[in-house]
């Protein structure tokens, strides 16, 4: 039930401050020979993949193949579970986030996450939810910003501003499921990350909300590196530029990355047999 914090530094060698380069905003995430385990048993093994700014990368595969585990390795959330560990590297703009002197809390300022079930903070209002990351974060980030503006900007980016602008002080939990998820997206965007990880963001939502959020994703990729886990192949086809397929080859064995290519290529001309079987629906 508790989260454990590894690899923090006393004085905090932070990853260099975020930058938006002129050509494309967002960070480049490189996964290199990554194996992630729980209490010594690997959940995913030897994954190598690159996620580039300006693109949406989708992770697809049958349930239990480790796509969520892989996602959670990208912002260091995996190792907060007691007994969890990783080998290999995840490079954020060239620096290994699992390096000896890296402060994972600062990594998560740059790599945001949206979860499968919307999880707004129940005791806070809508505005407070959006501002939470800034209010509870490092003081110097808060200094230059006006919270009201940040709240409005983030809610606009998440496509929620018009619907809630008159009730910002209502509790976050009073919104519908789809609205709550967009609230969580706004909350993640408020801290101005460079990448946004989305773990099956629409699977708990109705089709209308799903459509709205899928529309958001296309907008978001201009400014953020987006990585989305989805069990819905059609969704991957709709929203992503790059698709990576993962699977387990036998029950109990760790997940592996089978194939990654541009979405169009993967769906029309998959190379590996496992990919072909999954896409054609032969295996679920």
């Amino acid at each position, binding site marked *: 039930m508790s989260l454990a914090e590894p690899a923090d*530094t006393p004085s905090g060698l932070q990853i260099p401050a975020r930058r938006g380069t002129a050509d494309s905003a967002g960070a480049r995430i*490189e996964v*290199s020979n990554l194996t992630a385990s729980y209490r010594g048993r690997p959940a995913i093994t030897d994954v190598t993949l690159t996620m580039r700014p300006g693109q949406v990368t989708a992770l697809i595969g049958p349930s239990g193949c480790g796509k969520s585990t892989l996602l959670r390795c990208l912002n260091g959330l995996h*190792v907060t579970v007691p007994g969890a560990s990783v080998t290999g*590297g995840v*490079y954020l703009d060239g620096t290994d986030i*699992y390096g000896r002197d890296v402060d994972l809390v600062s990594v998560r300022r740059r790599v945001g996450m949206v979860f499968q079930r919307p999880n707004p903070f129940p005791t806070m209002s809508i505005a407070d939810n959006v501002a939470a990351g800034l209010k509870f974060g490092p003081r110097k980030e808060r200094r230059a910003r006006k919270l009201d503006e940040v709240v409005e900007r983030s809610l606009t980016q998440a496509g929620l501003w018009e619907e809630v602008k008159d009730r910002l002080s209502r509790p976050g939990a009073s919104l519908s499921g789809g609205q709550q998820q967009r609230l969580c997206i706004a909350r993640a965007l408020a801290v101005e990350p460079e990448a946004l990880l989305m773990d099956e963001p629409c699977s708990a939502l109705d089709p209308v909300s799903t459509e709205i959020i899928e529309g958001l994703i296309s907008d978001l990729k201009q400014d953020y590196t987006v990585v989305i886990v989805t069990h819905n192949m059609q969704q991957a086809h709709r929203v992503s530029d790059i698709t990576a397929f993962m699977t387990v080859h036998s029950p109990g064995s760790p997940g592996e990355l089978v194939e990654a290519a541009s979405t169009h290529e993967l769906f029309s001309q998959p190379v590996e047999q496992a990919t072909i079987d999954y896409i054609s629906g032969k295996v679920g």
Partner: protein
Amino acid sequence: MTVPATTSTSPVPVRSLQTRRRYGDRTFRLAMLGAAGVVVLVLLAMVVFLVAESWPALAHYGPLSFLGSDRWAPSDATAASTRPNPYGIVQFIYGTVLTSVIGLLIAVPMSVGIALFITGIAPAWLRRPLSYLVDLLASIPSVVFGFWGIFALIPALQPVVSFLIATLGKVPVIGGVFAGPFFGLSYFTAGIVLAIMVLPIVTALCREIFATTPADEREAALALGMTRWEMLRTAVLPRSRAGIMGAAILGLGRAFGETIAVTMVIGNNVLSITKSIFSTGATMASVIANEFTEAVEPFHLDSLFVVAMWLLFISLIVNIVGKLWVRRIRGDLVW
């Protein structure tokens, strides 16, 4: 944007949980763990200081001499003499155990019955109010129970006790235990009061234990045509024996520690053990409460600390045994 020259083939060493902490996080964690440490410190300090405070008396009279006598006569004490030990504490241990046993003998069967009724027979809408009412008994302060015990319970007990003295008191061999006279304040009265005070906690524990019987076992019994009671007797009770035992042990621990209510109705006869349950007596807790502020004789206060020390040890042991027992049966539930 730099990419590492080689996608490293030699893996970074396995990173398991904690290594270092941010400054603020580290301070916070230490502060929280420090507070937790205080809890441990308190228990240790209790043991250490009580033993230390009893030490002069233990050293003077010898530790075992306290347990070897049931005569407590502070006025006999002089600074010089070491034998016999005027502060024998056996009657207090006897009083504590006797009143608690009487209390449990009454409370445990009642609690089991009440818990069975609440979990197995009462309709769903009745369950919470009934549980609530029984728990309410636990909220009543000890001093109020004692006060009520003197003025309401004792008069009501008179006819009952007279009857028992007239019947059981005449039985050979055990008659002495039920002998008169009965003046109200007694081990028996204290036992009744303890029964009332211990009932809620034992009932609550039993309720939890009975609730763990899987629904399908109950339904199977009912489907065979058993009445509610027969179902309880065959499907619920047999598997709950160990749990009931655990609840009883924890109830015993609670009874041992009860002070004020017992002090007010037991009569505080500290001299020595009296045979009948209808006579006055004293418990470890009651003698401390009664004599503490007037302990002026040599080694009097120190000897009261000897009593306190033993009371602490005995309750700790009973409570630890009870906790471990209940944990063992329940797997992992934290009480």
